[in-house]
């Protein structure tokens, strides 16, 4: 199989974009879901929200670029997937809308009810995508009903077909991984009582969360017939996952955060490697599966995109990393109300 072509390169680049998205917005989702559980009062909640305040928007762009790159490099994939997963994507969009607006709006009005409403928007808006992205990717991996309709690859499975047990475990896996990832991020970015509560929560969450992710990985290997001897990447992911509870117990939360991040990257990479050369396998008609060739744009479009990506991606990585350096300080109650003590 010839893998040295632009189609494969763009498949890999899209995988990288999803890795970036889940690594970055993964902890945003975790922080958002934890909001009511690690805070006693409004100031605590503001501490939690401000840990991701300067960065969440830039993190979300990884999704937009992943979507745009899919449209540009694999229009058939984009068209079949987005129309096929219509209602789940609608729910994700609603979630991302209320969440994004909530960050900006919640502290701009003093009323407790106003703030509580937007806080719930943050929690639900973080919970839903954290769950649904796992459901979506599990479905992509396992294959969905795709048939040829008027010469096009069309999804014919309906909404409920997407909520199968395997996909739901996939959803729980992404949910727990992001929750843990976000908790560790919070632990690294806060100080004082919020941090104490987060640390206690991490110790309780770590094993159940890791267990759910491992269950998904095992199911994937058994179900997709990849054999019992997994490749190097998922093995490393397992090592990383199992290490998290021990690292957290040893108060090495920096390392534990790298471990959740590493596990996210390795698991997404594994999923894409299993998928290749398909991009959206059909569960009912192998001939209707979409792959990196029959879903792709022309070579000219891929070339143009490659040139643009080669020039601008490093630049983006530099300035986005730099923001994390600028906002590297921990946030505590004093940071937000310097006059109160």
């Amino acid at each position, binding site marked *: 199989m010839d893998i040295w072509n632009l189609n494969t390169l763009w498949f890999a680049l899209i995988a990288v974009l999803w890795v970036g998205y889940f690594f970055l917005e993964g902890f945003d989702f975790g922080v958002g879901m934890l909001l009511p559980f690690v805070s006693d009062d409004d100031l605590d909640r*503001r501490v939690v929200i*401000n840990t991701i*305040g*300067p*960065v*969440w*928007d*830039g993190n979300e*762009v990884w*999704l*937009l*670029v992943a*979507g*745009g*790159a*899919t*449209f*540009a490099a694999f*229009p*058939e994939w*984009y*068209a*079949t*997937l*987005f*129309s*096929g997963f*219509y209602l789940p*994507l*609608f729910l994700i*969009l*609603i979630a*991302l*809308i*209320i969440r*994004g*607006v909530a*960050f900006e*709006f*919640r*502290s*701009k009005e003093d009323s407790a009810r106003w703030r509580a409403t937007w806080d719930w928007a943050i929690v639900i808006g973080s919970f839903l995508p954290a769950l649904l992205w796992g459901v979506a990717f599990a479905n992509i991996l396992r294959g969905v009903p795709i048939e040829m309709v*008027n010469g*096009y690859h*069309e*999804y014919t499975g309906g*909404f409920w077909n997407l909520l199968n047990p395997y996909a739901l475990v996939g959803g729980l896996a992404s949910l727990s991984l992001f929750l843990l990832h976000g908790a560790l991020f919070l632990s690294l970015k806060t100080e004082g009582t919020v941090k104490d509560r987060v640390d206690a929560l991490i110790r309780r969450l770590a094993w159940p969360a890791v267990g759910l992710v491992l269950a998904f990985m095992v199911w994937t290997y058994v179900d997709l017939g990849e054999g019992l001897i997994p490749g190097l990447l998922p093995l490393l992911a397992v090592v990383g996952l199992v290490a998290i509870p021990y690292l957290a117990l040893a108060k090495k939360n920096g390392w534990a955060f790298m471990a959740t991040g590493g596990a996210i990257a390795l698991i997404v990479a594994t999923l894409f490697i299993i998928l290749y050369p398909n991009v959206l396998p059909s569960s009912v008609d192998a001939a209707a599966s979409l792959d990196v060739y029959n879903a792709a*744009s*022309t070579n*000219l*479009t891929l070339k*143009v*995109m490659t040139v*643009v990506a080669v020039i601008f*991606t490093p630049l983006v990585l530099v*300035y986005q990393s730099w*923001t994390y350096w*600028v*906002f590297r300080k921990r946030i505590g109650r004093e940071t*937000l109300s310097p006059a109160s003590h």
Partner: protein
Amino acid sequence: MSSVLLARWQFGITTIYHFLFVPLTIGLAFLLAVMQTIYYRTGNPQYRRMTKFWGKLFLINFALGVVTGIVQEFQFGMNWSTYSRFVGDIFGAPLAIEGLLAFFLESVFIGLWIFGWDRLSPKVHLLSIWMVALGTSISAFWILAAGSFMQNPVGYTLNSTTGRAELDSFGAVLTNVSLWAHFPHTLSASLTTSAALLVAVSAWHLLRNRDEDFFVTSARFGMTFLLIGALAVAFTGHTMGQVMTDVQPMKMASAEALWETEQPAGFSLFAIGDIENGRNHVNIQVPKVLSLLAANNLSAEVKGINPLQAEMEAKYGPGNYIPNVGLIYWTFRIMVGAGFAMIGLALYGLYLIRKKKLMKFAWYHKIALWALALPFIANATGWVMTEMGRQPFVVYGLLKTDDAASVAVSSGEVLTTLIGFTLLYGVLAFADFYLMAKYAKAGPDPDMDEAQIAASMAY
């Protein structure tokens, strides 16, 4: 209602809603960058207060533009998958490039700007808002590059095997005449919109004699850019009209309710049409002016709807190629009328400031306040005219809207999301308007140092 019609409603509602916020984002980012530059250069604290006050309004508005933008990108695949397959080879690339070049720039640097007041040097903090402004304008360029392909497809070949349009020349896509007409027009409309916000909010405070220095400075600043913006809108709009006459004569004829070809052609001031019979009951015209608008020539021929319909049937096969003439005619007039009203508003305001009479004319402030609706009306009607004037095509001359929707999505599903999005947009518009009004009315804070500003800007 058919699935296509529901999907069109959803697209229209989302796009117009999105575009309530976007021009303000593009324009205000630039105006904030100018204000902060003046502060940086002169050290005049008035401009720091201005940056902060208008910056807060900017941020409230910014959030809704960003989140509705996600829907924009997703709905091509969700609702218009047949369209997406047809144009993906050309349309996808500018969209992806927009994300990589523009969305990252604006999203990352907006975070730095909001939270970085006391963590970045003044120079780097100033650079951040310029990066945001640059990002929003780059974003406009790439999305218009994609959209212009729908208005005037260039740089492609039709692949008979795959049945799709495929990229032939990326250079041609980027030098599309429609793009270079739309882009400056959109930027100047954005500048106009944001300047009108400055003028209107200042007027509200000046009517109540609050913080006079601050709001006279803001009003003058706003009026200056309102004048520049609105004049630029008119000039770029004139170019757009000529490009439109070339690439979509049917849209121009519809905008004028010009049923039969005229030479020279008159500009219609008021018409009552008889759509069924392809003529007007009443049409009051200014002679020769349409020829001038369409071709910079007082005696040029401008083609009418009826002969164009016959031409298009010969070219594309039997069918109705006439868009909704009444809608196109009136949206065009409302847009142009709103544009000229803003030029007048800015000119008169600047005259009053020059004569130092601004505070004496309460009625001017009342008008200026209500005139805030003008740019929003002009933006919305402009888009409706541009997009609906292209019908029945979604990609002009190549793909009809009726053939472009998703096959896999049922009309029940589209109805569900149409209701869901519309209700959510409504609630969020209400919250947004409430906060905008609240912060606009509260007026500027007393001058603060950078650390205090940082604390007050945090979430």
